[in-house]
């Protein structure tokens, strides 16, 4: 089952978001999220000696991530924690071996999920989150975090709140939400924010590039609004899956 939504946040568009839950049969919870897949139709009319030429450009961009959750499961003795569940995250890039940048993604995702889970309910166990990058067209970190959150929700582990990640970029004087990789090439800074569903406070933040404090605050407010849309999307997704209980 699939669900898609095109968001409009104050005339700024987030790319279409699609999510499918329980895509894998073995893990306790799994989710596949794709962001993107839009096309632009451009007509270019050229008149030369009364003739018309029309060019049509098709443009596709799609960031896709699959996340799987196993938990609570048995934990290795060196990672055992007596008062809460130990969270392990594995991120696999599309090709090649994981490098230091992927380790940092794992750390951000692990800490974000640790905040969201009620890990004190399952001491001396492990929750293992595995992410596989399928395609990257910008906004990969936010797509990964959304997929991990959906997979955790699908597995039924107790969570304090859900999280939604939104990425944005700062170009000359504009703040653009959910940029694709083509948009990012001309950016001054790109920021990823993660908000919780309870009070919409900032759970995680990762930036690259240079920006001012005011620009940071403005981007944070815009992304917070966009995260509300993403939480609505989660709710409609769950409603669709629940019909047969």
């Amino acid at each position, binding site marked *: 089952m699939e669900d898609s939504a095109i968001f409009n946040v104050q005339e700024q568009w987030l790319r279409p978001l699609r999510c499918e839950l329980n895509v894998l049969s073995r893990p306790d919870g799994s989710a596949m999220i794709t962001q993107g897949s839009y096309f632009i139709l451009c007509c270019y009319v050229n008149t030369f000696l009364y003739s018309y030429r029309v060019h049509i450009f098709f443009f596709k961009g799609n960031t896709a991530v699959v996340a799987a959750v196993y938990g609570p499961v048995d934990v290795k003795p060196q990672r055992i924690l007596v008062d809460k569940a130990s969270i392990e995250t594995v991120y696999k890039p599309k090709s090649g071996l994981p490098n*230091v*940048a992927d*380790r*940092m993604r*794992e*750390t*951000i*995702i*692990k*800490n*974000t*999920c*640790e*905040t969201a889970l009620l890990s004190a309910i399952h001491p001396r166990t492990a929750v293992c989150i595995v992410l596989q990058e399928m395609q990257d067209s910008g906004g990969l970190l936010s797509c990964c975090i959304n997929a991990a959150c959906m997979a955790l929700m699908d597995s039924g582990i107790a969570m304090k709140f859900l999280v939604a990640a939104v990425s944005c970029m700062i170009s000359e004087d504009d703040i653009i939400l959910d940029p694709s990789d083509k948009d990012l090439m001309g950016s001054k800074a790109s*920021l990823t924010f*993660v*908000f*919780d569903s*309870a*009070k919409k*406070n*900032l*759970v*995680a*933040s*990762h*930036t*690259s*590039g*240079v*920006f*001012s*404090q005011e620009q*940071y*605050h403005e981007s*944070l407010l815009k992304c917070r609004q966009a995260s509300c849309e993403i939480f609505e999307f989660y709710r409609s997704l769950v409603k669709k899956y629940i019909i047969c209980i």
Partner: protein
Amino acid sequence: MDAQYKVIDPVKFYRDHLAHKIRPDGRGLLKFRPAVINVDSIGTADGSAIVKIGNTTVVCGVKLELGVPKPEESNIGWLVPNVTLPPLCSPRFHPGPPSDEAQVASNMLAEILSNASVLDLRALCVVPERLAWAVYLDAVCLNHDGSILDACVVAAVAALRTVRLPRVEHDADKDITKVFPDERSSLPITGAPIPTTHAIFEDEVILVDPTSDEESLASGLVTITVQNDQMCSVYKPGGSPLADENMQACLSRARTRAIQMNNLIEAALAARDKEETKDQKLIS
């Protein structure tokens, strides 16, 4: 008595201190530890700096090497930062391949240096397509007592300021490279990004410049890097959700701290220059 109380219930130990707005090491909640910078202390390296923030000690050494630029980026050199957290610095680390924390720190250091455009890589190119400098920046932590990223970035920036590139002559026809180690010019370093780490304790209290114990008890960490009053990096890897006012306060604090640290780096470099002129006077 105090030490036993800390071992039995560390969270309550900290909570009781914070209720009186003080930390176990006597600092206020928003007080930074004293920082010490010493530059150019390693004779065998092409540039070096030692930074001590409280007990956290990081040594950064720079080594230069000549190499052939990549064909697709034929007019730039390389800046290769690396952070090592050996078992020496903390009982948390074991011998073997770099731990996750070391890898994340290396990545953050590389990101911060590139975001802040500290070094224009084109200045490292000697002869386009043929010869370029590779600057290897190794930050080794000698004592990990929290805020490791703060110390590493400051050490890296200070070390880069002390690097002097020797003059290189390259004869293209005969393919001979001559290096003149005595004729040196400094690297064109623009700006100095300064990180500030905050710890969030039990979702409510924000501590500045946490020690290693505070970091392990904290429910969240935020590292904000500032250069020239602009933010280069706001890194919050999960942890307790932070309200807007608190985040804004952290950003403002990071900006004031950056000014203080910059003054410190300048003072250290000035002291080094004074020593050099004194030595030169003695020799001549």
